[in-house]
């Protein structure tokens, strides 16, 4: 039984929106990481959530850095800390835009160099801080302010890109499953070298659902198979319990989509395509888990 510490490193004075999945996830990330931690945060919602100078709502050092620069900044920080004999956790906490779009080059470089750090992408599937514009992580059919008719392209497969760098540990997570997230962060931080966690982080204003439904939406994402919780340790895939259950008996995808305003009016053929793609990802992961490919 996992004991989640009572200590909180996010104080009760953030500038987060009500029901923010990002802050919820970060709360558990920091509980798992503990006080000997530095967060590196590129431009994203978390830049704002931590508060306004000279105040901060986070009780670990936070280094805010330019949009494209987080992974590279963490590379330098990790190298300097390790050279000084310090074991301080270096954790990048970046949004999806700062990861799959503008930050992908720095992330790729840091992974390839074997940087000793944990890179976390909290994914609310759009540029949230600027008011919900499409990112490469926005799913097919989702309306954003720059895709008023719904996005025409499917979500970029960030995990496949990261996996191509063969990090020793990578995982997906969701803010609706804090215990699972907590354990994954602990596992990542006890692994030397580059580790990666991709957190689906439901966003009430961006996804257009009521603030109290953040956890519910996250659970729906997993139960409908639209988000799969799994780990890849030394290349070996393990599909985690909630997603394993969803693969046996998934809820209809429509339950997840109809709960969010961003998918309002989505064409049935788009939904069919989403189902097919989700199924393909699930089957690929299952084959990988069984060691077939």
């Amino acid at each position, binding site marked *: 039984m996992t004991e989640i510490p009572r200590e909180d490193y996010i104080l009760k004075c953030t500038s987060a929106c009500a029901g923010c999945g990002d802050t919820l996830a970060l709360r558990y990330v920091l509980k798992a990481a503990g*006080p*000997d*931690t*530095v967060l*590196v945060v590129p431009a994203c919602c978390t*830049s*704002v959530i*931590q*508060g*306004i*100078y*000279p*105040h*901060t709502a*986070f*009780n*670990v*050092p*936070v*280094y*805010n*850095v*330019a949009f*494209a*620069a*987080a*992974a*590279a*900044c*963490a*590379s*330098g*920080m*990790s*190298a*300097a*800390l*390790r*050279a*000084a004999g310090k074991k*301080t956790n270096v954790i990048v906490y970046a949004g999806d835009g700062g990861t799959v779009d503008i930050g992908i*080059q*720095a992330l*790729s*470089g840091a992974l*390839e*160099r074997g940087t000793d750090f944990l890179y976390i992408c909290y994914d609310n599937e759009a540029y949230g801080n600027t008011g919900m514009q499409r990112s490469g992580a926005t799913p097919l059919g989702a309306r954003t302010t720059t895709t008023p008719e719904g996005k025409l392209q499917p979500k970029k497969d960030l995990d496949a890109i990261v996996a191509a760098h063969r990090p020793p540990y990578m995982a997906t997570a969701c803010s609706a499953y804090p215990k699972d997230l907590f354990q994954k962060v602990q596992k990542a931080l006890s692994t030397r070298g580059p580790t990666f966690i991709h957190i689906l982080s439901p966003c009430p204003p961006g996804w257009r659902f009521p603030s109290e439904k953040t956890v519910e939406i996250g659970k729906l994402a997993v139960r409908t198979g639209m988000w799969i919780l799994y780990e890849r340790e030394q290349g070996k895939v393990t599909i985690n319990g909630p997603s394993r259950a969803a693969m046996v008996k998934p809820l209809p995808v429509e339950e997840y989509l109809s709960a969010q305003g961003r998918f309002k009016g989505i064409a049935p053929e788009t939904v069919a395509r989403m189902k097919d793609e989700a199924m393909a990802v699930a089957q690929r992961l299952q084959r990988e888990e069984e060691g077939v490919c």
Partner: protein
Amino acid sequence: MLTVATGNKAVAAAVKEAAPAVVAAYPITPQTEIVEQIAEYVAAKELKSQYIPVESEHSAMAACIGASVTGARTFTATSSHGLHYMHEMVNWAAGARLPIVMANVNRALGPGWNIWAEHTDAFQERDTGWLQVYVGSVQEAYDAVLMAFCIAEDERVLLPVMVNLDGFLLSHTMQPFDVTPVGDFIPPLHLPHAIDPANPGGYGTLTGPDNYFALRWDIERSMRDAVSVIRETQERFFQRFGRRYDMVEEYRCEDADVVVVAVGTLGREAEVAVDLLREEGVRAGSMRIRWLRPFPRLDLSGRDVVVIDRDYSFGFGGILARSIAATTGVNPTSVIAGLGGQEVTYEDIAGFVRDREPGKETWFGVTNDV
């Protein structure tokens, strides 16, 4: 020990003496030899730096920033397009008050592709809050890098320093230079705002207008304080190693009626032009501006001034000529010369002086019908 080496090798040798904890490296002509040589020092364990072979210049400066904020001494080198690719982080380094030292080998910007000397690359970074020094010899490149760490890391400054050397004309030119062991000349770095998990704080958080304004003024206050820190450091260097440097290197200016102002190797070439003109009976002198930021006060009153710009601000003029006009009130003859490595000899420079016409701007070698 007296040896013969290129400007690039001299920069690397100085970095070895300064022993930064972290070096971020990305290749670009004509700087590459610097990061190659540092890699060799690290491989041979002559230098114990963490060597981070980043995937871009933007990441080179980002890595330096991440390392520097832990209180570690950091270095990187770049040139031209590389400097501009990292431009965002160049601003960040200064705003974050991190004493990073960077060598920039001055090179023209494309298109068309041009790998030769020009100062526009670094001049375009003049408003970022970095101190900038431009050197005129291989020895000076070595000495300037050593002093750059002292100046950047001084608590009265805590701003990054860019050491500039002309592409090929210095980066690849071999000159005699004395590899002076630095000993304890560079004090250990103590960064007062280093990241400390025992004392957590937010760095670069969202900052409102009033606080932001105050932080910007603090950069300028340090930039002004830097003038005396530069002078002190250069004097301490002279006392210890016997080589003297100033904000501006003046040559035969005492009784000069006309003064040539230039930067880098052109400033040294101008000294030869001054000798030539003196032989002709022209009372000429030259000033080689070493520190572009903080910008020096020049005493030019009552003299004709010829400014050579190996740079240009389109729609405005030679950056040096306009800066000198603005800060001294003189109306200089402005000569734009040497862009993209254009050959400019001391005889050409003597010609600029003979043909001077206050207030006029001339593009060397360009006629109106070009």
